């Protein structure tokens, strides 16, 4: 019996973003979080237990949580309040950790799962932040769970590092951040899709959590955005002609250019 909470985020689909204006960009469940959710559901199938998903976000983020319900998650909670707006990773991990404490008080907590990072901010900081605040061993970049030993209270996890795969063992409760190779997402079953459609996400506000107001949202953030701007445009390069009529000639011209450029840059 493994009591798990997955922390998820709704994000704009950055594969659809090409300009500064993000209006009309579809919102999706952060892909890494989808893999974390799937991992939790698979662990539940293997060891028993239950899975709760938790998100901090605006009211419309409930859609991402419903998606998780369709994956086979048991309970979904949205932590949502104007007081949380503008939170950086420091304030976000503070608020999410407060939500996790409340869940732990209600149903117990053995394992927290997060995605490696969210594709909008790409910080990978909230998972470690939560682990630090709850004093949990953090196991980042998880690619697989080898074993959960419920009697000993340990978890054995494979981590994707830059030069290989490391196997670590940590005591429960622990926190994992998951990468895409963790698993293949499955199609939602029909009963779960129906359950998701009818599911009413629980909403907790700042008043429901044991938090200090000055540590929430923008007020509780240590970083501020000074400026947002478009990335510098690259100078358009040179098109070498003949690509379709004379591929051999174009290839030769390209190599000449590269060698010439290398020679001048050596000087």
């Amino acid at each position, binding site marked *: 019996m493994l009591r798990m909470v997955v922390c998820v985020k709704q994000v704009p689909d*950055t594969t659809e*973003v090409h*300009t*500064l*204006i993000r*209006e009309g960009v579809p919102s999706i469940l952060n892909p890494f979080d989808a893999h974390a959710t799937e991992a939790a559901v698979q662990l539940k199938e293997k060891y028993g237990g239950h899975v709760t998903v938790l998100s901090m976000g*605006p009211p419309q983020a409930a859609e991402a949580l419903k998606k998780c319900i369709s994956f086979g998650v048991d309970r979904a909670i949205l932590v949502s309040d104007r007081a949380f*707006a*503008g939170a950086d990773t*420091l304030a976000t991990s503070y608020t999410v950790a407060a939500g996790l404490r409340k869940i732990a008080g209600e149903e117990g907590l053995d394992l927290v799962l997060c995605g490696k990072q969210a*594709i*909008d901010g*790409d*910080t*990978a*900081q*909230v998972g*470690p*932040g939560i682990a*630090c605040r709850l004093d949990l*061993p*953090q196991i*980042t*970049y998880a690619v697989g769970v080898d074993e959960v030993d419920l009697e000993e209270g340990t978890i*054995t996890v494979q981590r994707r590092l*830059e*030069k*290989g795969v*490391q*196997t*670590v*063992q940590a005591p429960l409760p622990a926190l994992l951040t998951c990468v*895409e190779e963790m698993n293949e997402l499955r199609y939602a079953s029909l009963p779960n899709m129906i359950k998701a459609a009818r599911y009413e996400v629980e909403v907790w506000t700042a008043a429901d959590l044991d938090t200090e107001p000055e540590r929430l949202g*923008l007020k509780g953030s*240590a*970083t*501020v*955005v*000074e400026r*947002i701007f478009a*990335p510098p*445009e*690259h100078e358009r*390069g*040179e*098109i*070498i002609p*003949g*690509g*379709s009529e004379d*591929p*051999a000639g*174009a*290839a*030769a011209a*390209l*190599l000449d*250019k590269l060698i010439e*450029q*290398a020679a001048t840059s050596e000087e």
Partner: protein
Amino acid sequence: MAKDKQPRLVIEPEKCIACGLCEAECPFDAIHIEGDVAVIDYDKCKVCRKCIPICPTNCLSVEGGKEAAPAEAAKPAEVTGKVGGYSGVWVFAEQDSGEVHPVSWELLGCGRTLADTLGCELAAMVLGEDVEDVAIEAGYYGADRAYVIDNPVLQVYRTSPYAAACISLISKYKPEIVLVGATTLGRDLAGAIATELGTGLTADCTGLDIDEETKLLRQTRPAFGGSIMATILTREQRPQMSTVRPRVMEALPRDETRQIEIISEDLALTEEDVLTKIIGFQADSDLDAPNLQYAEIICSGGRGLGSPSGFELIQQLADALGGVMGASRATVDAGWISHDHQVGQTGITVRPRLYIACGISGAIQHLVGMQSSDTIVAINTDPDAPIFQIADYGIVGDLYQVVPELIRLAKERNLKEKLLSGVAF
């Protein structure tokens, strides 16, 4: 005319996405989201401009009056309380069994400029077992001082003892800026440290400089998959912390005449205190994975290959040039090639001397991972593919016609040998 008018905050309602950031930012409760747009209460607005930089769609501006710097930015960082007493630029020297990750030297190169601008010391934070050589080497790359903790518990990286060691050094010596490589290890560590210290951390920076007036560290990074850049400040907490993307900053030339002052500290931790145990490691060399991040030449394939077998041709090109094979996300998602070849936002950031993109259209998520390559070549049938906008040289044509010619000519001219001897590129 505008000069005589009082300055006034205005909003372009059609750009507003009602995200609520301005409402949260406003110290005077003068902006409220009403329906799907932010509305300004002019009785309360003091034109402090705090909301302007926070707006993600740039829909707020001030009209009338003369342009003034934001009230907050004009004020120097408060040299009291939490900010006062912090000095020095520190770089975390990432090492594994004495082998230092090159990003550490890149950060010392960048840190040198920051420290000289601020007129303070540049130091390396060196943790591990038997790491004095690393500290000396840090001196060769520009550090004035090294803060060293030598302890068997730090022999292999684990979050909790490394975070504890960093926190003890930072708490004692109070550096103003701490830079960590945005590597797997660095990102694991920095998030834990910053949270424990309750300070700001900016992830995966690609630009760092010091604001002339406020002396704050301006941390610039891509966001939303590289579609926008953001400059971020940590105004009131210290140290100001950043993780910095590898292959973006320049290391200084190694100078063996440079001396470094070494300050050693103890860490009261033993193996029994560390709950996480490492019980195995499968190195990638056993798995034949590519080392893309520090490759000098990369040949990548995209969806334009048409099928998984297309990567055989890309591998032949890479072999002919002495390079490493990369891939776009689309091909990895399609299962044509393993994830460790993926270049881009959710893959690996590369900065080779030569990047050849074959059949890659150039989605932002790919470009953000390779656009700082020295020379970019694109081969694609679609002349309007975004990849051509950043390519130094482009060939509009079928990669299956062009690439075999490149392979043939590269072999004929013995380019690989020339590359190895450093003649070409």
